């Protein structure tokens, strides 16, 4: 059997006009179609007295909210962040599990596989990480105020106030200014760590499945695929929980600030 190790960059299958369509985008579209169908089914059948599907989804959401509440500490905050966190969680979960569909890696268009897990594309993981970090800053700006939020990174206000309080206060303010710069760097690192962690895990899983499948096509890859199911869930949870932590931290007033 031919060993096909996926390349780091997704393979371009065809172009729509000048837009390249990669195999990861096909997987993303599959997820979109799946959510669209599920969404229409839910919207048309949603009732106060739930059916089996609605009941299962509500049960799943309730369980998820319990975990979210542990991070936010408040159900209202959980619900406020849900458009971001819920979308991230369900999309990553489905994308990861779609990568285990039969045909992923084996059906080819030309020399490239038709399907490839969406999160093995750094463009997507970076896009989601950016959404996560940028939305946390936007939430922070609107919740704690522009000045308070910016003062977490560029502590000029603290520095100006310290000028009248003596040399020790000035020294502390200078240190806080430097810490602010480090905070700005750490915000960039958040995007890197979020995107690379997800990409690395899912890409490694894809490589592992490819290698194992090339050694033995039947039965042997099954345990690894089961493991990938778990990895998919864990990675979705990690990405979501970290996003939730960023959102919670950014919408919390810093120490010493009174409400």
């Amino acid at each position: 059997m031919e060993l096909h190790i996926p390349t780091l960059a997704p393979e371009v299958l065809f172009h729509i006009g000048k837009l390249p369509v990669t195999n990861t985008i096909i997987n993303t579209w599959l997820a979109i179609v799946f959510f669209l169908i599920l969404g229409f089914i839910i919207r048309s059948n949603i009732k106060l007295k739930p059916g089996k599907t609605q009941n299962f989804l509500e049960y799943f959401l309730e369980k998820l909210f319990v975990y979210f509440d542990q991070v936010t500490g408040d159900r209202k905050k959980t619900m406020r962040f849900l458009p971001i966190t819920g979308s991230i969680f369900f999309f990553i979960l489905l994308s990861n599990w779609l990568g285990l569909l039969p045909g992923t890696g084996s059906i080819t268009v030309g020399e490239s596989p038709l399907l490839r897990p969406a999160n093995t594309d750094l463009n997507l993981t970076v896009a989601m990480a950016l959404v996560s970090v940028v939305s946390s800053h936007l939430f922070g700006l609107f919740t704690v105020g522009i000045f308070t939020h910016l003062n977490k990174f560029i502590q000029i206000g603290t520095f100006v106030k310290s000028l009248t309080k003596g040399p020790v206060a000035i020294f502390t303010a200078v240190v806080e200014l430097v810490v602010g710069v480090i905070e700005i760097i750490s915000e960039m690192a958040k995007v890197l760590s979020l995107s690379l962690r997800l990409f690395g895990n899912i890409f490694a899983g894809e490589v592992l499945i490819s290698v194992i499948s090339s050694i033995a096509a039947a039965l042997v890859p099954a345990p690894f695929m089961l493991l990938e199911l778990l990895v998919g869930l864990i990675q979705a949870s990690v990405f979501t929980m970290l996003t939730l932590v960023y959102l919670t931290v950014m919408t919390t007033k810093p120490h010493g600030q009174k409400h």
Partner: protein
Amino acid sequence: MFIDIAHASEITGKTAEAAAETGVLASLGINSTLFIFQLINFALVALILWFLILKPLTKKMSERQKMIDDSIENARKIETNLGMSEKKYQEKIDQAKVDANKVLEKAQAEALQNAELLKEKTRKEIEQLVEQARKNIKTERDQSLDEIKEQTANLIVAAAEKILGTKIDAAADNKIIDEAVKSLK
């Protein structure tokens, strides 16, 4: 198998070379067009997930939760109202009992008072009747006495007339007296 692995390492080598030639970002697959494409895709997913799935579900869940909370609150209110009604009912019953007792006491007092009044009135009437009877008796007695006196006087006069009309011995005297007495009867 070994050939395949050699092929794979060759691909990896080529990738590394490409990285050196085109930059780290390009070797990792980062492409501005693809990035924007994926960003739009994710935005689309987020919109679909939120507006078609998560929002309707959470809205329905909160509606149900509100309905349950309202029902519990209503049940609590009904329970409280029931308790208050029972309390009011008991209070009214107690008040009615107190009022009834008062009415009974008042009626008893009035009855006693009326009885006393009637007794007093009756006693006075009896006294008046007795007084009237006494007066009548006295009047009758006086009349009788007057009549007796008159009769006695008449008798004495008649007896004296007889005595004076005839020679009277002791035996005739007694006989005349007896006749006079008999004639009185």
